[in-house]
């Protein structure tokens, strides 16, 4: 009896009882017609930032870029990671993927910046307000599990093709862990610490800046690291909507059955991922290190050199 009802409900209909697909199509079409200008407006700042960063990276002589990254890695991560970065970047240049790498890097940078600008406040909000968390959480679940191809089409309908929608899809995919980890990081600050700060008359703002954010920082940085990794993994999918760069190399390689070209693009992505991952992961860690950053890396070496000449400067 009951199975019959379900069979009838589920299979014997000429159309669905709840035509969800039609509704969504209609809704997207309506938004496109009425609010396209909003999305075109959002385009502008993203597009400007992206173009500026890309132009700068393309203009920068590779040797200078490599030097800066290596010194930065040595200073804020470890010397080992600096050496690793050097080899990885030289390899990228020698396999002929430098230009594409800079293009992809600029897209990743802008997408991650957008993640931070949007994700950090949302993470803070969900940490401080249970209702905000209850609303944000299912949205993050959807963003992380929904296949990217599903939202690729509506994004193109709203933003058109090119780099900006590329940034948007990358953002959608990369921002959830940053929000989650910011939320967790702030909630994990020990109750006693929060209580002590309260007992001395901290305002909510002072609590955030003096206690919660500094103590959540390692977790938040782990979130940034995750966002970078996810952004890189979106590069190939973004290339489907005409985004240039390493993803496009892979895409073209697949299209022409050119295994070599696809492999070069893929290797470029992997090398970039390794460099970015190692550096960002260790920046978070070394800040907990007791040694002051000024006493380490190239800066520390420089200081040691100069203080040897002027031994009176050294402090106990």
């Amino acid at each position, binding site marked *: 009896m009951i199975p019959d009802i379900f069979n009838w409900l589920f299979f014997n209909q000429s159309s669905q009882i709840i035509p969800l697909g039609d509704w969504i199509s209609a809704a997207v079409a309506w938004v496109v017609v009425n609010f396209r200008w909003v999305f075109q407006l959002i385009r502008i700042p993203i597009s400007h930032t992206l173009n500026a960063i890309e132009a700068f990276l393309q203009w920068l002589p590779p040797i200078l870029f490599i030097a800066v990254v290596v010194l930065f890695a040595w200073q804020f991560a470890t010397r080992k990671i600096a050496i690793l970065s050097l080899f990885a970047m030289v390899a990228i240049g020698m396999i002929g993927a430098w230009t594409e790498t800079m293009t992809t890097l600029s897209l990743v940078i802008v997408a991650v910046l957008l993640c931070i600008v949007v994700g950090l406040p949302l993470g803070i909000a969900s940490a401080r307000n249970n209702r905000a968390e209850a609303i944000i959480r299912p949205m993050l679940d959807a963003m992380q599990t929904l296949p990217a191809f599903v939202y690729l089409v509506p994004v193109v309908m709203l933003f058109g093709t090119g780099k900006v929608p590329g940034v948007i899809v990358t953002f959608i995919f990369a921002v959830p862990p940053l929000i989650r980890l910011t939320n967790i990081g702030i909630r994990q600050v020990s109750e006693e*610490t929060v*209580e*002590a700060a309260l*007992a*001395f*008359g*901290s*305002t909510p703002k002072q609590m955030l800046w*003096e206690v919660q954010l500094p103590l959540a920082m390692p977790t938040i940085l782990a979130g940034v690291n995750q966002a970078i990794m996810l952004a890189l993994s979106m590069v190939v999918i973004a290339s489907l909507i005409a985004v240039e760069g390493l993803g496009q190399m892979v895409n073209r390689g697949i299209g022409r059955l050119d295994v070599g070209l696809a492999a070069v693009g893929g290797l470029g992505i992997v090398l970039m991922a390794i460099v970015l991952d190692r550096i960002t992961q260790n920046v978070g860690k070394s800040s907990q290190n*007791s040694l002051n950053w000024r006493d380490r890396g190239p800066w520390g070496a420089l200081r040691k050199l100069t203080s040897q000449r002027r031994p009176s400067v050294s402090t106990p």
Partner: protein
Amino acid sequence: MPSSQPKIKLENLIKIYGQNPQRALKLFQEGGNRDNILEATGNVLGVANVSLSIEEGELFVVMGLSGSGKSTLVRCINRLIEPTSGQILIDGEDVTRVDQERLREIRRTKVSMVFQRFGLLPHKTVLENVEYGLKMCGLPLAERHEKAQHMLDVVGLHQWANYAPSSLSGGMQQRVGLARALATEAPILLMDEAFSALDPLIRREMQDELMRLQSELKRTIVFISHDIQEALRIGDRVAIMKDGHLVQVGTPEEIVTNPVDGYIAAFTQDVNRAQVLKTGSIVRQTVPFILGKGSARAALDQMQGNALTRMHVVDRHGKPIGILNQAELQNAVTSNVQDVESVMSTDFPVVKASTSLEEIFHLARFGVPMAVINRSGKFKGVVEQSDILASIGRLSNDKADVPQALSTAV
């Protein structure tokens, strides 16, 4: 010391934890106790109708077993926990009714706090921790550095200013916590089991330190403890809590000598009474001879009139300066010596009324009566060895206490 109004006054303070405190409150007012409120509503009665007054400059200890509601009580005072009902008056201002802005003001300038597990900010240096309260007040950097540095000097940690708190030992960390609380110059200091996490030796040291600081700074301190020894040792007054209720409030001596019920008596059973009882409580009032008011003859008359064998001599300010022995005085009078000063012995012990009995045991062994003086040095009366033994013998249910107390004193 007590001024016109108490520094802190709690009136019918009730705190109920849980979803529906109003229903639980009604149940409580109809005579429910902790257990049947929990059973009926699932709510926990944290503090049950507590009223008490704490005077300015007092070191007030709240003592009770774990779960008796001490932390809840103390956190209601600065509203880290919102009371369910009742009033909390600080200098006559009801803090349960103030808005958030005023509450922060009170926390910054009037009430500061020391925590059981220190509550230091792990990402800040020792100095930054100490100046945290000052920073919240918006004090400029140089000024708060100076004040914080001074406070670190006071607790003896100035050379640790730029270290992370985690590189300090527990006792040192709590000194930082204490310095942070003192730095804001708030007149009220809340200390929730501030020394409970420390080793016994360090704890004792910190108690001494606190009492030393208190004698200089004269704050109003609400000190929470689960340790009756600690409570009786440092408290001017002690309140004992049980299941959220206040069972007894009184001076340490009152608690030990006059427990209101078996619960308190059981608590104080293992307490070394000689440590708690003060010399002043067993002093025998006698009339001393005032030097210059008459000859040796007059002194002898006074002695015989009061049926004494020994009598103290005081100067015009009431300060004890000698002791007369009846036999010697008799000899002097028969050989016509008039000058009392030449007859009296100046070799006698003097103790303050506030000294504990434990500390005067060793003096009693000389067999000479002790002159007891009050805070301003005036003669109050005498205490003899027999008085000490009698008072402890009378008070202890267990006679074995006496030799044990004696042996620890010597």
